[in-house]
């Protein structure tokens, strides 16, 4: 489903990687590994369509990525994407509506509960701790089963054991129903997948 061919990436005039290629199908987990500064985030941002590759091509469902791709993709980057002045619940609702999902308020609350955020749901996001921000961003995943491709940049950072387990459960379920998960991480978190691929980037 997701295919990269001869991908090269440049940041600030420095070549991060060249000749990168992979092809992953439904139900596959793609782990991107490498030391700090090796280009993991750049690769994910390139896959998401935020950055343009220096060369090479990325194909989704055997076609160039177009508007359809953005409907079938979810990207969670380093920044949680929470507006400081909106409550956690409002932020989650906005993120879901933006990606075209209907607004089932009950379900949004359930997703926040899943990540232990029910007590802060009506609090402005500026009062959240780093880990809580991370949880609030990831709560989207619980309501994004129908989005096939999940691109997660360092999803495990700042999470405690309980949230880690919740996240790995969500990813496992997504892979089991034929979804695709691409994630960068330094931690080995167990995620059962029908197929696992690993891309290792060199510094």
């Amino acid at each position: 489903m997701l295919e990269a061919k001869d991908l090269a990436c440049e940041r600030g005039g420095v070549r991060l990687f060249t000749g990168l290629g992979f092809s992953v199908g439904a139900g596959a987990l793609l782990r991107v590994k490498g030391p700090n500064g090796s280009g993991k985030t750049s690769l994910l941002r390139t896959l998401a369509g935020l950055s343009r590759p220096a060369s090479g091509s990325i194909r989704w469902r055997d076609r160039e990525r177009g508007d359809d791709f953005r409907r079938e993709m979810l990207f969670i980057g380093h920044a949680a994407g929470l507006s400081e002045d909106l409550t956690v619940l409002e932020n989650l609702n906005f993120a879901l509506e933006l990606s075209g999902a209907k607004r089932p308020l009950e379900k949004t609350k359930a997703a926040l509960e899943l990540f232990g955020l029910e007590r802060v749901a009506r609090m402005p996001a500026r009062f959240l701790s780093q880990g809580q921000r991370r949880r609030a961003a990831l709560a989207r995943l619980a309501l994004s089963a129908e989005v096939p491709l999940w691109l997660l940049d360092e999803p495990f950072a700042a999470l405690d054991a309980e949230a880690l387990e919740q996240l790995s459960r969500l990813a496992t379920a997504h892979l089991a129903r034929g979804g695709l998960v691409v994630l960068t991480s330094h931690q080995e978190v167990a995620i059962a997948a029908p197929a696992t691929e690993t891309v290792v980037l060199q510094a």
Partner: protein
Amino acid sequence: MSGFALLVGRDLRIALRRRGDALNVVVFFVVASSLFALGVGPEPKLLAAMGAGVVWVAALLAAMLSLPRMFAADFADGTLEQLLVAPRPLLGVVAAKISSHWLMTGLPLTLIAPLLGLQYHLPASALGTLLVSLVIGTPVLSMLGAAGAALTLGARGGGVLLGLLLLPLYVPVLVFGAGAVIAVQNGLDPGAHLSLLGAFLAVSSVVGPLAAMAALRIALD
């Protein structure tokens, strides 16, 4: 819900929670345009002659005051990233940002301007023209401003750069906006000035959003 309505609703909700920011613009406008009247003294003829220009300059600076905030918060907290990867046309996103900026600056400035014109002894006909010229002119400030705000996103000293970038582009708006009011005061028809202002609105409504879209893509690359 369309992306446009969704975003304008969100931006207005945020503005309601940060009422100080919106109030700053209005207070600056009132104070800046009143200072001239106080400094020049109570000579009705002199005040009437400079009134339109002063109100227009103050409106222009007040609109610019809030421009750096147009994309900065969304850029810092990662929302802008999400807006770019969302299955929504970027033009809608930019149009929404421009509209909320105008609703929070251009609209209140336009509504207050006739009151400020009163302290410059502007006649009723001139006050009406001032209102019309601001209705046409303030959206231009927001549209070109969006391009400027997007271009200076993440740049050091962005505020100063924004001024240097935009003030020259705002000159025609100022000249023809204030010119329309002065024409009426001199017993002339303001039609020509207002038409030219309308032409600037038409051009900037194409150039502004397109430039802002391109600049946003570069800022997030």
